[in-house]
């Protein structure tokens, strides 16, 4: 027995059917690394933002599958799991200049017609590691409410678990991205401030400040971040 195993409480997990003993308290991601797996794909930010480490698992006394992000979920004793590094869902091409919802009240249906097959089973919502009301945003898209679809899906990290579970083969996360693009282009007010800031950056007005920060020591940079003032000017 290794020194580690003597000092820490160990639990048993099954990765793709193979048994491993790993320390309690690790995330699924670190537990897999502990067990000797090396991530080439299926691992991104390690902070719950990128959606690359979708994982599907079952616990010993449960017959239902559960879904989560491997970097955000602690391993449990008797967990059976597998990683899903990529979801090969179809994403439809669109021209952002040709998806005006005021011109076409069924624009979402035109690109993702399979949403009409939604039976409201809510399996997508149950699969979502971000607790997004996925079924509700599909329903919003179905009735032409693009903005609601965009709002409800705002926290989507595109892991694709919803689409894998869907009995109607709906491609939720791509649909939701289209809704957010349309909302940004046609529904939200145009931001003059953004345009102004982009121009300032292009003009090189922040080049010196950027250079200064790049050369800063880590501690100094952290202090700067923590003490920053993000209140609106004026």
């Amino acid at each position: 027995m290794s020194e580690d195993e003597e000092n820490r409480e160990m639990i048993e997990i099954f990765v793709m059917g193979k048994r491993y003993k790993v320390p309690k308290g690790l995330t699924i991601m670190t537990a897999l690394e502990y067990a000797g797996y090396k991530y080439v794909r299926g691992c991104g930010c390690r902070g719950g933002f990128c959606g690359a480490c979708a994982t599907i698992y079952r616990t010993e006394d449960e017959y239902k599958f559960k879904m989560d992000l491997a970097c955000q979920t602690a391993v449990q004793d008797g967990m059976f799991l597998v990683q899903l590094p990529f979801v090969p869902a179809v994403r439809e091409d669109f021209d952002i200049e040709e998806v005006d919802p005021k011109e076409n009240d069924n624009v979402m249906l035109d690109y993702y017609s399979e949403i009409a097959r939604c039976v409201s089973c809510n399996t997508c919502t149950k699969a979502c590691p971000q607790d997004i009301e996925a079924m509700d945003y599909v329903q919003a898209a179905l009735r032409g409410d693009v903005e609601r679809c965009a709002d409800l899906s705002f926290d989507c990290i595109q892991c694709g678990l919803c689409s894998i579970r869907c009995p109607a083969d709906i491609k939720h996360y791509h649909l939701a991205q289209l809704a957010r693009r349309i909302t940004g282009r046609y529904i939200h007010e145009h931001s003059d401030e953004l345009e102004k800031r982009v121009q300032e950056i292009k003009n090189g007005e922040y080049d010196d400040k950027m250079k200064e920060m790049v050369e800063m020591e880590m501690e100094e940079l952290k202090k700067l971040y923590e003490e920053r003032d993000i209140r609106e000017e004026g």
Partner: protein
Amino acid sequence: MEEGYLYYPGCTLKTKASDYEESAMAVMEALGKPLVEMDDWYCCGAVQSLTEDDIMHQIAPIRTMCCAQEQGEKEVVTLCDMCYNVLKQANERMKEKPDDLETMNEFLTEDPDYLGEVDVHHIFEILRDMKDEIKKKVKKPITDLKIAPYYGCMLLRPDHVAIDDTEDPHIMEGLLEAIGAEVIHNPKRTECCGSYHTVNRSDIVEKRVEDIVSRAVKDGADAIALSCPLCQFNLDFHQRNTEYDIPVFYLTELIALAMGIEVGMEKHKIDPKSLLKDKKILE
């Protein structure tokens, strides 16, 4: 709901059939019983699944019943005939088959159990019961307009969810008389318009539409009145390859006009406004 009726729109009412929603909401508002849209609702699925063990396709309508229950309501009103038919059939099934209701509730773990106590109504049932109030509110009776009512399938079949006599309905005739229209009896009024064949077998729909419209015109109709958005699309759009071009109204548009309420009628294929101007109903 004391101040009005809990209203289930359905997806089509929010897109292609917005003329129907606008006119129905305006009429009910004027009658002092506004339609109040549900806080949450789900697509009904549009076609009732007839497979005995296919509980999956009953989930969406029952989830909507759960939403009504959650809002503390016992009645839901729909405008679309498809939605009415699907919601009504699924709901009746839950009331009649406790085993199915139990199966449903086992699956709907995220919601409180559905108790089967909500009733589904079509707007025409509500309007029928308010006929006297409608008469009182009529400002410009549409006496010069000859209207052929058209029922289609979904309000009358199957028998156990029919809002009127399946073979000889009168609900629309009564309402048309209340607003002063001349009713043209059309024996084709309960025949199918061709429904979803419009997607890939428009030849079938064209034949049905020609049959229905030609009979109405032969008997002197200036226009048709109905409530189903799919029938409206078929009868309106598919007259293009026939010799006919009579407007196809949602009945609520005509009621609104008779009450002196302005309605958009923006999405009609055959422009209804020139007929209404000819008959001095619109200026």
